[in-house]
């Protein structure tokens, strides 16, 4: 019984509530005319779509930089990569990996300066990250209007210049991962093998990274910066490295998202993508300074499951669309819970 109590205390009531809520939605689904196989397929799809964006948060959490509210920088790097890929008419796997290749230098540069900035403001990283992210997105809005892209599928029709708000990737690399080795069962269920394999590979990559000498040092910096310093590890260097890695993964994450979702969303779209990622990893059990692969996978699954099932099930029951409101309450409530938890400094 004591083990159960400690489990509940560590896991936290909000997470348990969310988990039970999701299970009940799955149970209810068939009774309200929602197909389980279609739902499951949806959930898997959305899981794969978002997973890497959530994974991107892990390095910075581990190194003690907190929740990366500045993930928008990584997303923008990814957008630059994707648009460049389309500009050069790259298709199929070339297009997808080309997008990542174009995004890489941007993400490293953004991440490097962002990391240096965060090192100068230790203690107030989260708020500053938010506003740096917002202003950068706004700056990029001006850029999207002004940069000399000229692929006709990307720019506004009549003016001929300035990127559209939403650009389709159909004909380029739509669902290139999802469809790779996909398994179709019945009319409604598609298992997006390629997507999940890619997600698995990235997660494995990060898992391995955390077990290298540098990865170990990074974790130590987040766990006890004084200890790490006394062992000759430069906390600043580790933090900057984690920020660069996080930004890079953000870029990869948005490209994966785009190939599944089907559209490149520019302008103010990056900003609202950050909070759901943060909420997801927190739902998965991460804290402000510790996150693992399990947190990423479980959290993304639960959160996306919630976002998928709630509209279909609740709407069928109540004949009304409450999904937006529930999403707002759940995701922000989760982040709030994590922020107000007594930081378990075992001193």
């Amino acid at each position, binding site marked *: 019984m004591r083990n159960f109590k400690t489990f509940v205390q560590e896991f936290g009531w909000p997470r348990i509530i969310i988990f039970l809520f999701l299970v009940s939605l799955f149970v209810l689904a068939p009774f309200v005319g929602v197909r389980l196989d279609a739902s499951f397929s949806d959930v898997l799809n959305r899981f794969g779509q978002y997973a890497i964006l959530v994974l991107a948060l892990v390095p910075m959490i581990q190194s003690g930089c907190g929740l990366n509210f500045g993930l928008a920088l990584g997303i923008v790097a990814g957008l630059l990569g994707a648009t460049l890929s389309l500009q050069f008419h790259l298709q199929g796997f070339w297009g997808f990996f080309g997008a990542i290749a174009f995004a890489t230098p941007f993400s490293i540069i953004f991440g490097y300066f962002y990391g240096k900035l965060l090192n100068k403001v230790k203690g107030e990283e989260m708020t500053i990250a938010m506003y740096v992210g917002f*202003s950068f997105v706004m700056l990029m809005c001006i850029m999207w*209007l002004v940069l000399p892209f000229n692929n006709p599928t990307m720019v506004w029709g009549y003016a001929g210049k300035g990127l559209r708000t939403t650009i389709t990737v159909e004909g380029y690399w739509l669902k290139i991962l999802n469809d790779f080795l996909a398994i179709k069962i019945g009319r409604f269920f598609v298992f997006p093998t390629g997507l999940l394999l890619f997600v698995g590979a990235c997660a494995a990559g990060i898992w391995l990274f955390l077990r290298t000498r540098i990865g170990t040092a990074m974790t130590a910096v987040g766990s006890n910066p004084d200890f790490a310093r006394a062992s000759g590890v430069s906390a600043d260097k580790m933090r900057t490295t984690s920020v660069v890695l996080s930004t890079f993964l953000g870029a990869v994450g948005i490209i994966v998202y785009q190939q599944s979702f089907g559209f490149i969303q520019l302008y103010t779209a990056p900003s609202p993508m950050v909070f759901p990622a943060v909420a997801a990893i927190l739902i998965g059990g991460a804290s402000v300074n510790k996150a693992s692969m399990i947190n990423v996978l479980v959290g993304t699954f639960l959160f996306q499951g919630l976002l998928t099932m709630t509209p279909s099930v609740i709407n069928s029951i109540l004949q009304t669309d409450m999904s*937006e409101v529930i999403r707002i309450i759940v995701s922000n409530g989760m982040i709030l819970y994590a922020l107000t938890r007594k930081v378990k400094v075992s001193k």
Partner: protein
Amino acid sequence: MSPKKKSAATLFSEYAVVIIFLVITVAAISPSGLSLKYIIQELITRLGRNSFLVIALLLPIYSGMGLNFAMSLGAMAGQIGLIFAVDWSVAGWQGLVFALLIGLPIAVFLGWICGKVMNKAKGREMVTGYILAFFINGIYQFFVLYMMGSVIPMRNASIILSRGYGIRNTLNLESVRQSLDTIFMLKLGGFDVPVVTLIIIVLLCVFIVWFKKTKLGQDMRAVGQDMAVAEAAGIPVEKTRIVAIIISTVLACAGQLIFLQNMGNLATYNAHDQTSFFAAAAILVGGASVTHASIPNVFIGVILLHAMFIVSPLAGQNLFGSAMVGEYFRQFIGYGVIALSLVLYAWKSRKAIFNSRSDLRGGVAGKGKDEGGQA
């Protein structure tokens, strides 16, 4: 710390934000093609419309809780009051008073919750407040979109959505529009000056000045400077912080009502989204920081920020051929200003800690590497 001659660099960093703003705004006036008369009239109107909200940020800064990004909780309380005022068809400035009476207890309650939550997240008040605002927004939406008109009986069918419950997306505030402003609109040198509104703002300023002279004000100041010392002296730190937030939330409630009566319509589900952003940007542009803010910061900030907001869309249009550029530029500067202020503040306070320790060295030769001390 011994009084040192402030180098040009230090002076710049203290006033960096104000300087940048002045430069950008003045540069944008001529490309915008707007007349000075138009700009000044707009500024007078906006002073009346926004100042109250910005003043609401003062006490939390005073108490060491940073920028109260959760002020939208007060705005939401005011909006609920306003919905009922429209529902009960209470018109004119009486409608505003009615809205205030309903919104006040809600604002006190929400402020109390906010204070309690922030006390649990000491050192992270700003980001917590930000998220709390979103969270309560969800609850507000649930309340207004689902409960009003169904569980909560509403009288006026014209404000309800066609499906039968939930308030419409946009609420026409014709009944209370400009009611405060027009009680006594003074025509002064070609400009329209909303006297009563401005008098209310001045009264609030007087209240703030008086408040700082009270014991509670002194306690807030002590708590804002050093919680540990205040606690050791017997000051009830947690309670004091909660009171500061409650007052801030209540002022935000009233401030939002003033804002909305001037705007003339209520975007039911969005009006409060940008409230804290505009107020925080304004006070920072006015020279305030996360730990220091005074009344002059409020007015200088409102004038500078809104002057920039007035001229940049058209300047962008004329310079770049696109109104959107001006619009984006406006937001970029707005967010950038907050980011810059936060960074300068964080950087300065770390330097101050390092410098104050150099006093303790007292006679120790040489200076170590920067940051050679603590991690």
